[in-house]
C-alpha cells in the first residue's frame, strides 16, 4: 500500500491501486518504478510487440507517439512495418485490424478519442464481435484490441469527453475493459492483447498524467472478468470503473468521517462482468450504488442494478442507487454539473444508508 502514489486533482489518494497482498510481496522482489498511466500503457505495448513478433500497433498519428504519448518510441524500436500511422478513417482502420487479426496476428488499433469510435461502430459490432459465431468458429478476430481514451478531461467539450462503454456492452462477442490506474492499465492491456476475443480497452484520459503509481517493469497480466474489492466495508457496496474510482474513493473517505463503511469494487471488465463478486458484496452490505460518467439512462449501471435487484432482492435494504452523468450531451461549460462528483455520490451514499 505504501508504494502506491496517487495524485488526483491535487489530492494524494492511497488504497485505490491495491492488488492482492501476496502478489504484491512477490512483485516487490522485482524492479518497479513510479510511472504515470500513459507510460504504463507504453510499457505494455513495448512488451506486446517484443513478446510476439506477430503484433502490430497502428492508428492515427501513433508512429510519432500519439496525441497522448502512449506509443512513444515504438516505431523507432520495432520499425515502421509494425507500428504505423493510418489515414483518418476509423471504419477502415478497424476493419483492417479485423482482417489482420483473422490471419492470426495481434492487431492493436488506437482510436484517438473514444468519441471518434462511432464511424467504426459497424465494424466493431457487426464484423468483429460476430466473426467467430457466424463462421462456426472457422474464423475469429480474437487478436484484435481496440484502445481508445475515454471520459472527461476538465474542458474537452462534446467530442473529446464521452464515455461510450455502454454501447459496446450490448454486444455479445466483445470484451470491454477499463483500467483505473497505471499498474492496472499495464496488466489489463496485456491481458486484452493476449485474450482470444476482440476487446475494446477504454483508457481514462484524465489519468494519463495524473495517476502515478509504481508499476512492475516485467511482463504481467491481470485477469479479465474479475472484479476487485479495493476497499472493504460493511454498510454499502459501491461499484465503478476507470477514472470514476478515484472520485468514489474520495466519497468513501468522506463517508467514513460520518461513520459509514463503504465497500468499493472496481469492476475492471464490463462484459463479461464479474457478477459473483458484486453479489457477494451486496449480500453482505444490503445496499448498492453504481456510478459512471456516461449518461444515466441506458448506462451500464442500469444493467448492474437490474441484475442485482433480481439476484439479491431479498437482501436489499434500500433501492439500488445510480450516480451518473446527466442525460444531456456532454457539456462544454458546466462540466462539473454534469459529472457524478464526490458530493453527489456522498449525498446518495447517505440517502441510501439512511433509507
Amino acid at each position, binding site marked *: 500500500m505504501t508504494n502506491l502514489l496517487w495524485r488526483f486533482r491535487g489530492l494524494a489518494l492511497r488504497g485505490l491501486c491495491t492488488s492482492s497482498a501476496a502478489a504484491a510481496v512477490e512483485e516487490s522482489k522485482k524492479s518497479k518504478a513510479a510511472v504515470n498511466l500513459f507510460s504504463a500503457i507504453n510499457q505494455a505495448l513495448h512488451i506486446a510487440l517484443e513478446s510476439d513478433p506477430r503484433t502490430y500497433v497502428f492508428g*492515427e*498519428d501513433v508512429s*510519432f507517439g500519439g*496525441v497522448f504519448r502512449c506509443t512513444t518510441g515504438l516505431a523507432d524500436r520495432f520499425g515502421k512495418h509494425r507500428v504505423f*500511422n*493510418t*489515414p*483518418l*478513417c476509423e*471504419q*477502415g482502420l478497424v476493419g483492417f485490424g479485423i482482417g489482420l487479426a483473422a490471419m492470426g496476428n495481434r492487431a492493436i488499433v488506437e482510436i484517438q478519442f473514444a*468519441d*471518434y469510435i*462511432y*464511424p467504426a461502430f459497424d465494424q466493431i459490432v457487426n464484423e468483429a464481435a460476430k466473426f467467430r459465431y457466424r463462421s462456426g468458429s472457422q474464423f475469429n478476430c480474437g487478436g484484435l484490441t481496440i484502445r481508445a481514451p475515454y471520459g472527461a478531461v*476538465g*474542458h*474537452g*467539450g*462534446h*467530442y*473529446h469527453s464521452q464515455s461510450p462503454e455502454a454501447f459496446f456492452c450490448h454486444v455479445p462477442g466483445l470484451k470491454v475493459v477499463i483500467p483505473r490506474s497505471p499498474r492496472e492499465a499495464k496488466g489489463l492491456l496485456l491481458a486484452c492483447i493476449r485474450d482470444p476475443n476482440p476487446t475494446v480497452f477504454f483508457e481514462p484520459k484524465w489519468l494519463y498524467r495524473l495517476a502515478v503509481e509504481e508499476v512492475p517493469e516485467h511482463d504481467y497480466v491481470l485477469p479479465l472478468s474479475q472484479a476487485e474489492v479495493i476497499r472493504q466495508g460493511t454498510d454499502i457496496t459501491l461499484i465503478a470503473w476507470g477514472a470514476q474510482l478515484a472520485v468514489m474513493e474520495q466519497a468513501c473517505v468522506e463517508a467514513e468521517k460520518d461513520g459509514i463503511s463503504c465497500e468499493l469494487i472496481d469492476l475492471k471488465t464490463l462484459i463479461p462482468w464479474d457478477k459473483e463478486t458484486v453479489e457477494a458484496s451486496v449480500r453482505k452490505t444490503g445496499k448498492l450504488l453504481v456510478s459512471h460518467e456516461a449518461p444515466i439512462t441506458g448506462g451500464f449501471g442500469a444493467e448492474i442494478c437490474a441484475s442485482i435487484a433480481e439476484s439479491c432482492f431479498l437482501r436489499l435494504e434500500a433501492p439500488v442507487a445510480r450516480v451518473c452523468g*446527466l*442525460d*444531456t*450531451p456532454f*457539456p*462544454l*461549460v*458546466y462540466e462539473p*454539473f*454534469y459529472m457524478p462528483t464526490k*458530493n*453527489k455520490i*456522498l*449525498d*446518495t451514499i*447517505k*440517502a441510501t444508508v439512511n433509507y
Partner: protein
Amino acid sequence: MMALNRLVSSSSSSSAALLRPLSALSRSLSAAAAADAPITVETSVPFVGHNCEPPSRSVSTTPAELLSFFRDMAQMRRMEIAADSLYKSKLIRGFCHLYDGQEAVAVGMESAITKKDCIITAYRDHCIFLGRGGTLVEAFSELMGRRAGCSKGKGGSMHFYKKDGGFYGGHGIVGAQVPLGCGLAFGQKYVKDGTVTFAMYGDGAANQGQLFEALNMAALWDLPAILVCENNHYGMGTAEWRAAKSPAYYKRGDYVPGLKVDGMDALAVKQACKFAKEYALQNGPLILEMDTYRYHGHSMSDPGSTYRTRDEISGVRQERDPIERMRKLILSHDVATEKELKFCSREQELHWSCVLWLFSHDIEKEVRKEVDEAVAEAKESPMPDPSELFTDVYVKGYGVEVFGADRKEVRGVLP
C-alpha cells in the same frame, strides 16, 4: 525537405507571376483611379482541371474588393492570434483549431457566392463564421463559452453556427459534415432557388469513407454541391503523402470533375468558386482542392513543429502568405504618390489613392483595435445560465431530474 520543396515551389513561379498582375493593376488604377473601377489580375498559378475545362486565370476585381480582401483577412488573422493568447491565458479551454494561413479560402469563397448559398465545414471554423457575417464578439464569446456566443456558449471553438448567414456550422468528427452538405444541396435543388452548398473538409478527412459515399450520392442525383478540400498538407500530425496514395484530391472524385486552386490566392479562390457555383447548378457536384497552409499546429496542444520544419513554415510565410500577397498587389506600384495623397480629405469623394494611404497606415491598426475591443466585450459576457445545460436536448424538456449536494432540498425537474 521534400515537403518543403514541394510546398514552396508552387509559389516560386508565382512570385514572378505577381509582377504581371501588379503592372496590370497600376495601369488600371492610373486610368480609373476609382474604388470600383474594374481591373483584371492574373492568378498566381494556373488552375488545373480534372474532367473539366478550368476557368481563366484572369480575374476581374476592383480596388475596393482588393482592399476588403486585405481587411477581412487581416481581421481573421488577428482574431486567431488573439484566440491563441486567450487560450494560453486559459480563458479558452479545451479544443481550439486556428485558421491562420488559410484566410484566402474563406474570403475568396465568400466573395463569389451569396449568403443564400450554404457553407458547412469541420472544426476549423472561426474564420468561415466571420466570412458568413458573424461578429468578432460572437466569435470570442463562443470561444470562451459565454452567453453572447454564436451558439450561446454551448458549442465552443469547434461549433460555430450562423443560420441567417447560411452557415451550417462547425462539426467535430472528421469528414462527417460532407454527407450533411449533400443533404443541404438536395434541399436547394428541390426548391430550385439557384443556390449551392460548399461542403468543406481537410486533406485528412479526404480519406474518410463517408466522403466517397457523399460524393456518389451527389453525382448520382446531380446535386448542386461543391466539395471543397482545404488541403493544408497535414492531417493532424501526418503529412498528406503519408496518409494518401493520391494526394491529388481534386482528382479523387474520379467521375466527379475537380479543380486545383492556389488556396493562398484569394482572387484565384474567388474565380474558382464563381466557376464552381455556375458549374454545379448546371451539371452537379465538383471538387475544389484549395492548396493552402496552416501556420499553427493542428490544435493548441500541437506545437506544429514536430512533423514539419520551421524552414518550411517560414518559407510559406515569405513566399505565399495570402495577406502579404494582397498587400503587395495593392501597394507595389506607383499610383499612390505623395502628390496624390494630398488631394485626399474627408469632404472629397474618397479617392482610391487616399484609400491606399489609409490602407497602408491604418487598416492593420484598426483591425487590431477592433479585435481588442471585441475580446474585452466578450470577456464581459456572462456564462450561460446553468439551466442551459438541459435546454436544446429535445424540442421540449423531458423532465430530467437533478439534485445538488443536498439531495433533499436542492432537487427539481428542469425544463
